[in-house]
């Protein structure tokens, strides 16, 4: 606080009361939002927009994770408590779900005791009328002793009033309407009694300000919908159909439409740069620029329209409230393997990017569950893996929606089996952690919010393509152009290049998986830097002209060209896709795993496990697939079987060797 003119405002409130939506609305930031509890894991600061701010002083808003009270239950609640108590904000905005005063005001009265001026934002106030609730805002303000402002964050309503209320109270001393008094915090029953009095006080307020025509415990259509979408048997098929619809729309229908135009532009750019360079530029430099950079990056960026459609649809899904139901559906299966519905949240976040997904495991209390979730979350196909899926679905499977859907559910299946194995290895001494999830009301998803979310994710994708992927592609192009004597590799002798000589030894290991070509091995290796690199490198090593021409480009029509250049069967292509999706994630995600696992042993165990799983899944896909399609086994079956057998026996060895591991586990714990 070196600047006297800046007012710092903390945004606090119950989970899913709309804090981040309000934060985005008043600051113009684009933090990730969703209609379910626990989307925000960390604090985030932003300047309040000038057009809302009528006072002289600048206002900085800090968005905090949701909390039900000042006594934290989850670690993200703790962030909120620590911030409010220690960082001494100038004003607290308490966002209250107007349809749920009876719970929310408990936290409000605790905030009012801190002495920091509080402004209550009565959010979702448009829903009060809809639910036939009568609310006396002025009386509420009087009883609480702080300003109460009606807001609808999703529609940008009441924001100016809210900011001017902040300016009004900023220098005031907040008086508390309810004082718990001197409670001995070590005496549990005394604390409990004080908290009960607090709830009694909240009730007395509610009685005065709120009248409900329909009690909230009556059955609604929403409950009926829940019974269908979270049904014992229907829940999973419905989830599968929804995911299929998402992939089919983005991959088969809407995506290619835009991609067609987009790839045409990239093609024009390539031709334009080529003619600009003329013939005077050395062919090597020309190749690096055209094939390596524009070609490789272009191949990745070519998938942008398709991925944006996918992100848009996923944002709609998150916004409507369905995701909370998915956790309920999956809880049953996850419990059986020693995880809980809580573990699903990191995994859903992981479909955007594994890094925040892995970080979200912090909310899981049980250490073993947390570690297991952190090592399994990267199996969910993340945003960076989508271009890889899209390329193979386009090149080999005619843009079928089932490819993405299958990979999605294969990921879930692997996670469940993986959790079972980890539980076996660590020994099942799990305290069954309780599962509780608030079910938010369904709402019609906002096109605007989904568009914003899509735009921000698309922007991140383009930035990545223009930096890390560009550099990687240039490096791949250079390594492919020269041999170790730094001479330009002759036509037809590509296998003497630096790239080929590095990748070849690895490619031998991949023969039993059906794709023992050094080009494919190289692409898989660069994939560890960033998964989009798989697409970029393939474009570079197989000479991009095939990719970039709209007539031949995999995405926009006939993919057979790409398929024939790579010389893969459809089954081997699927195996290659499986290999890239389910081996360890990119280095950045491994770094996140390292932070959350808090143990080198777990980290190496996790990486080894992920590699084995990817290899085995890919092996099975290729060999079984080949057996079905051709009637005989694929190449390298026996050596592959030996490798798979070795990996499995290591896993089984750890699974049965419980005593030793258990004693280690106690050391770790």
């Amino acid at each position, binding site marked *: 606080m070196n600047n006297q003119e800046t007012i710092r405002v903390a945004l606090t409130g119950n989970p899913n009361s709309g804090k981040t939506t309000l934060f985005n609305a008043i600051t113009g930031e684009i933090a990730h939002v969703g209609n379910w509890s626990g989307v925000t894991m960390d604090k985030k600061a932003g300047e309040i927009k000038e057009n809302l701010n009528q006072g002289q002083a600048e206002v900085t808003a800090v968005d905090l994770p949701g909390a*039900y009270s000042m006594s934290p239950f989850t670690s993200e609640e703790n962030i909120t408590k620590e911030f409010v108590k220690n960082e001494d904000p100038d004003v607290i905005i308490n966002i209250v779900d107007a349809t749920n005063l009876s*719970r929310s005001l408990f936290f409000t009265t605790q905030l009012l005791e801190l002495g920091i001026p509080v402004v209550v934002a009565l959010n979702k106030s448009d829903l009060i009328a809809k639910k036939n609730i009568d609310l006396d805002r002025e009386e509420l303000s009087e009883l609480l002793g702080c300003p109460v402002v009606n807001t609808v964050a999703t529609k940008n309503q009441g924001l100016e009033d809210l900011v001017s209320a902040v300016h009004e109270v900023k220098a005031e001393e907040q008086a508390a309407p309810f004082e718990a008094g001197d409670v001995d915090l070590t005496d549990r029953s005394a604390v409990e009694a004080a908290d009960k009095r607090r709830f009694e006080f909240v009730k007395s307020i509610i009685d005065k300000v709120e009248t409900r025509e329909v009690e909230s415990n009556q*059955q609604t259509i929403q409950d009926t919908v829940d019974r269908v979408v979270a*049904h*014992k048997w229907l829940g999973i098929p419905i989830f599968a159909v929804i995911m299929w619809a998402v992939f089919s729309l983005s991959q088969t229908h809407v995506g290619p439409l835009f991609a067609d135009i987009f790839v045409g532009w990239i093609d024009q750019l390539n031709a334009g740069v080529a003619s600009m360079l003329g013939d005077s530029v050395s062919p090597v430099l020309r190749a690096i620029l055209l094939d390596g950079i524009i070609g490789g990056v272009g191949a990745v960026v070519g998938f942008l329209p398709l991925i944006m459609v996918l992100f848009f649809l996923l944002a709609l899904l998150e916004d409507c409230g369905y995701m909370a139901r998915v956790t309920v559906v999956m809880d049953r299966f996850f419990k059986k393997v020693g995880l809980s519905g809580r573990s699903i949240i990191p995994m859903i976040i992981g479909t955007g990017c594994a890094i925040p997904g892995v970080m979200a495991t912090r909310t899981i209390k049980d250490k073993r569950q947390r570690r297991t979730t952190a090592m399994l979350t990267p199996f969910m196909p993340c945003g960076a893996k989508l271009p890889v899926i899209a390329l193979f679905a386009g090149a080999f499977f005619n843009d079928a929606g089932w490819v993405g859907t299958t990979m999605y559910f294969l990921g879930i299946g692997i996670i469940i089996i993986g959790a079972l194995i980890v539980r076996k290895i660590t020994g099942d001494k799990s305290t069954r952690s309780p*599962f509780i999830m608030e*079910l938010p009301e369904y709402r019609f998803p906002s096109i605007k919010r989904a568009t914003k979310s899509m735009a921000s994710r698309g922007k991140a994708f383009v930035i990545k393509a223009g930096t890390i992927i560009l550099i990687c592609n240039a490096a791949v192009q250079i390594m492919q152009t020269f041999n170790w004597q730094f001479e330009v590799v002759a036509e037809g002798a590509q296998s003497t290049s630096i790239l080929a000589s590095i990748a070849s030894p690895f490619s031998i290991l991949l023969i039993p998986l059906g794709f023992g070509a050094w080009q494919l091995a190289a692409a898989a290796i660069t994939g560890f830097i960033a998964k989009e690199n798989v697409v970029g490198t393939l474009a570079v090593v197989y000479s991009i002209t095939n990719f970039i021409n709209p007539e031949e480009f995999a995405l926009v029509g006939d993919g057979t060209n790409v398929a024939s250049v790579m010389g893969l069967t459809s089954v081997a292509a699927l195996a290659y896709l499986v290999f890239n999706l389910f081996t360890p994630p990119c280095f950045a995600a491994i770094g996140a795993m390292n932070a959350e696992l808090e143990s080198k042993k777990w980290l190496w165990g996790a990486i080894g496990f992920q590699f084995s799983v990817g290899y085995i899944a890919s092996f099975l896909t290729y060999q079984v697939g080949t057996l079905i399609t051709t009637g005989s086994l694929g190449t390298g079956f026996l050596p592959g079987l030996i490798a798979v057998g070795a990996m499995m026996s290591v896993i089984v060895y750890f699974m049965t060797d419980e005593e030793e591991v258990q004693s280690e586990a106690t050391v770790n714990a």
Partner: protein
Amino acid sequence: MFSKISEFLTGGEKAVETSRNTVINLAEAETNTEYVIKEIKTDDEELKKFLFTLGCYEGETVTLISILAENYVINVKDSRYSIDKNLAEAIII
């Protein structure tokens, strides 16, 4: 029509529960009936505290809205929560 669909969807699970006379915890409760919580029976003090902040503690009312697979949808204060069977068994009514 909605009520018929929901009857079909929950019918099987309800039949088991009604055969008992004395309902002890929320896992045995009937849907659409308001109960008063007698006790939260758990060793997990933090969980108890957390339930408290939601308004789920002795003397308060709770309504079982529906049973979905092994999860129980309950109404406490003005919110819906999905809780698992263990937790439902811990809520004594």
